[in-house]
């Protein structure tokens, strides 16, 4: 369970998050939607302590993570798998070394055991025989899946996805959506998916939350989102340029 309360952060002159309240119940997938530049990535970076809020609180399993010293923060981070927007694979390493890195750094597993786990996790995301390849030679969809394999290498309790389907073709997007779903069922992981892809939001979300101008302006199930009378949410999920949200 992650509890976010009154989270505020100002970057430069812009109040990016202005009092975010959000609950992520254990075992559920919560989708945070919002337009580009509303602060979705900033919110997700605050959760794992890559950015530090000016005020507010983030509790992970009852433990406050805001202001936690690095050592304890790292213990919390080990319970998280993170899929970055671009995959964030290390291009100096092979695919296999990428996926195995957290295991080499944080476990005492032998290299044979690590290799076995790497192959297994790559299979979970539908990849075989790619261990020796370099990230530069992979397609966008493969890179995201390798990133996902690395995120689940340590059996995380939480997975954060930053725009997992952005920039992918519709078929690859569906592959990723199914993976997010299947991981939730397979390892009972709790997920936060940050996206502006409504298709993906409906597919993977147990709950949707909409971020707008620094606050969560709506939370509800996909059905509630579809039938909402809130004009702002309605406009966003319909993808219309007319309504209370003004295109900049």
């Amino acid at each position, binding site marked *: 369970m992650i509890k976010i309360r009154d989270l505020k952060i100002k970057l430069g002159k812009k109040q990016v998050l202005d009092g975010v309240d959000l609950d992520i119940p254990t075992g559920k997938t919560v989708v945070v939607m919002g337009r580009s530049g509303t602060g979705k990535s900033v919110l997700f*970076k605050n959760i*794992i*302590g*890559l950015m530090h809020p000016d005020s507010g609180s983030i509790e992970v399993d009852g433990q406050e993570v805001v202001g936690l010293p*690095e050592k304890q923060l*790292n*213990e919390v*981070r*080990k319970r*998280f798998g*993170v899929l*970055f*927007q*671009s995959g*964030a*694979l*290390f*291009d*100096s390493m092979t695919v296999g070394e990428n996926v195995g*890195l*957290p295991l080499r*750094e*944080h476990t005492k597993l032998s290299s044979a055991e690590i290799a076995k786990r790497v192959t297994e996790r790559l299979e979970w995301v539908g990849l075989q025989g790619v261990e020796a390849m370099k990230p530069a030679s992979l397609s966008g969809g493969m890179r995201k899946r390798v990133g996902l394999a690395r995120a689940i290498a340590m059996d995380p309790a939480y997975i954060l996805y930053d725009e997992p389907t952005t920039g992918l073709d519709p078929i690859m997007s569906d592959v990723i959506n199914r993976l997010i779903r299947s991981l939730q069922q397979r390892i009972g992981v709790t997920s936060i998916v940050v996206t502006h892809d409504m298709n993906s939001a409906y597919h993977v979300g147990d709950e949707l939350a909409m971020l707008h101008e620094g606050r969560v302006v709506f939370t509800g199930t996909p059905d509630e989102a579809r039938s909402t009378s809130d004009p702002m949410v309605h406009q966003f999920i319909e993808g219309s340029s007319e309504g209370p949200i003004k295109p900049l």
Partner: protein
Amino acid sequence: MMELIEDGYEYLRDKTLDSIAEVGRIAMLVGDTFRKLGRGLRSFGLVVEQMDHIGVQSLMLVFIVSLFTGAVAAVQAGYQFANVVPLKFIGSVILRSVIIELGPVLTALIVGGRVGASIAAELGTMRVTEQIDALDAMAINPVRYLVVPRVVAALVMLPVLTIMANTIAIVGGWIVCLTTLDVSTHTYVTSMKTFFFMKDLWSGLIKAFFFGGIIAWMGCYYGFRTEGGAEGVGIATTRAVVSSCVLVLISDYVLANVLFRFIFNS
């Protein structure tokens, strides 16, 4: 008019505060590197990899530069000695200027350009493609994982490269002496032996050690602070190279004073 002065004042004030903050942040990175040194050294493979990048792959460049440095030193000494100082002293002049000054400083400037740029570009790219965030998110400290191996490798390799540069420069000088100055090998070597002081060699190597730190830390610092895509990586690379070259020359002056006035002054 008043406004112009006020603007100018504000500009200067902001610039000054920025520079002070910058020095503070660099000092923090240096401190962080020492704090993470122990754990960082345990991943010894990473250090070896960087020694290869920083040291082994600079060999060819250092070789060429030092060969010509020695040769030029010999030509210049020959010209300036003419009718003033007997040429039999030429060996010692080449030796001492090379091991105290030319070897360490030119090696640092060359390696600073090559390695400083490559560190800043690599880490800068990692920053803008979220790879450094990914390390943090995996609970792998980026200073331990990226900075410590580079700094340690540079601290070790710069003195090693300098020893090599010294040797080759002396060979370069010797070739010029033999071929154009009519100084025999025996004269060249005897003169070097007569005026060789261990403290000269040491002072050069101590300087090289500091230069190694400057190069690696500047590359890491500007790489880590990169923002804004490919353009940002270019800016970071330029800053790393310029600042490490400037700092090498400034610290050369400071170290020359410290070493020869206070430490090797006997």
